[in-house]
């Protein structure tokens, strides 16, 4: 389907996201994705006001539970929550009972006992959000679980592409970098293919996950082929902290073979945009001139993240407090 902007004048007054939680892009239909993106456009306008706050989530408590380090995502969620007037608090794992050996489930059950409306969870284990969604009454928002999904990142990427290109359908999107360890990759591939983009992925053979071909994308180890004629180049970070060595000879060699340089960008369309979910490793997956160049939308992605997360929180919130939804 085409990603038409939902400006239809006689638009239906009610819309529905048929999920209590946002666990991954895998669960969302193309229509639901477009609903989130359209809602985010209205939310972006709130961010341009002098008073960047609306009363929508007044009296709702949102807990940001982050078991992994994060600057962008946690800050972005917190700003989104505050702009919607939710009461928000952050549980930093270094100062929590997790260091005393408490399990994820016990931590969640104890937080749950204090009646939050939503829990935004980041965890190193794939499936951690699904686990909590089965035991918590609060709505669970996945802020990145292991190597599984990072749905709000894919949504803000799609929002940024749509903002620049007016559509997603038919665009050639080249995703280059550490595919194996990337939850951003998985969420983006799911989303972009649902909305009709032509997705190419590129990495050294050691960093291509098994089954990649079955996800409806073109797979290559030749970065020039991936980038040729692309509308969007999306770079992924080398997740050195998740690697126990041996995936490629050296960072220097990786940059030479796969790094995004100005010369390589020239193979893409003249109006191609460069994206990166951050944090960037300058001189590893991307040259500084490219990251800071005029085609780069890396900081737009960060700005749009707040609007997209506001849209997700708005659409998931609701129901009487602690209503049980099957």
């Amino acid at each position, binding site marked *: 389907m085409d990603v038409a902007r939902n400006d239809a004048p006689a638009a239906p007054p009610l819309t*529905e996201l048929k999920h209590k939680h946002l666990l991954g892009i895998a669960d969302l239909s193309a229509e639901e994705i477009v609903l989130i993106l359209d809602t985010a456009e209205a939310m972006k306008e709130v961010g341009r006001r002098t008073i960047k706050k609306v009363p929508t989530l007044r009296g709702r408590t949102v807990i940001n539970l982050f078991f992994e380090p994060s600057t962008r995502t946690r800050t972005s969620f917190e700003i989104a929550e505050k702009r919607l007037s939710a009461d928000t608090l952050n549980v930093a794992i270094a100062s929590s009972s997790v260091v005393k050996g408490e399990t994820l489930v016990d931590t969640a059950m104890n937080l749950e006992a204090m009646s939050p409306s939503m829990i935004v969870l980041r965890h190193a284990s794939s499936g951690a959000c699904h686990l909590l969604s089965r035991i918590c009454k609060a709505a669970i928002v996945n802020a990145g679980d292991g190597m599984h999904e990072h749905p709000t990142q894919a949504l803000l990427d799609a929002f940024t592409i749509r903002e620049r290109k007016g559509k997603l359908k038919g665009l050639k999107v080249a995703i280059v970098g550490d595919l194996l360890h990337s939850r951003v990759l998985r969420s983006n591939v799911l989303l972009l293919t649902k909305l009709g983009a032509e997705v190419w992925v590129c990495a050294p053979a050691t960093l291509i996950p098994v089954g990649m071909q079955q996800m409806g994308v073109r797979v290559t180890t030749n970065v020039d082929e991936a980038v040729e004629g692309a509308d969007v180049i999306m770079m992924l970070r080398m997740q050195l902290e998740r690697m126990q060595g041996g995936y490629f000879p050296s960072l220097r060699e990786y940059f030479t073979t796969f790094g995004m340089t100005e010369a390589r960008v020239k193979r893409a369309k003249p109006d191609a945009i460069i994206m990166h979910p951050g944090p960037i490793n300058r001189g590893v997956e991307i040259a500084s001139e490219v990251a800071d160049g005029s085609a780069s939308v890396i900081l737009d992605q960060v700005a749009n993240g707040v609007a997209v997360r506001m849209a997700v929180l708005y659409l998931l919130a609701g129901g009487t407090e602690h209503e049980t939804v099957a």
Partner: protein
Amino acid sequence: MPVVMDAERISRALTRIAHEILEHNRGLSDLALVGVRSRGVPIAQRIADDLRKISGEEIGVGALDITLYRDDIMGASAGIKPLVRKTEIPFSIDGRTIVLVDDVLYTGRTTRAALDALTDFGRPKSIQLVALVDRGHRELPIKADYVGKNVPTSRQESVQVKLRELDGIDEVVLQGKA
């Protein structure tokens, strides 16, 4: 389905309201119109057109989406939500007389939300209210300054305003209980 206003009556009512706005405010300097989405926006645009024809002055028109200020959305069952649309007010409302325009005035809760929303955009000199139809049953102490037509209704009935710009036809229909 009785038609309580046809295209001609709507047009005459809006022209009369334009004259009333002009008379009441003794001129149009520092005056701007803000329509409440969806149907308040084309109505505000038409009043602005009438005001221009009468006075020759160009009046600013903004669009206000009040969804994020509503008092009933979080009570709805989870997931079902009104669609949020963009608020577009391309001028400063500080110190201006703002004429808020809505299609139907009923409980007054939409107007309450609109007043809260406007307050977040600045500090107008005053706010006046236009309703094409006032159907009664107020739940808040809110009153329109300019009314197209008073339509006595029961709570079981619904008033539907259809506009050329959005619905292809100009009419106001009163739908009774089945």
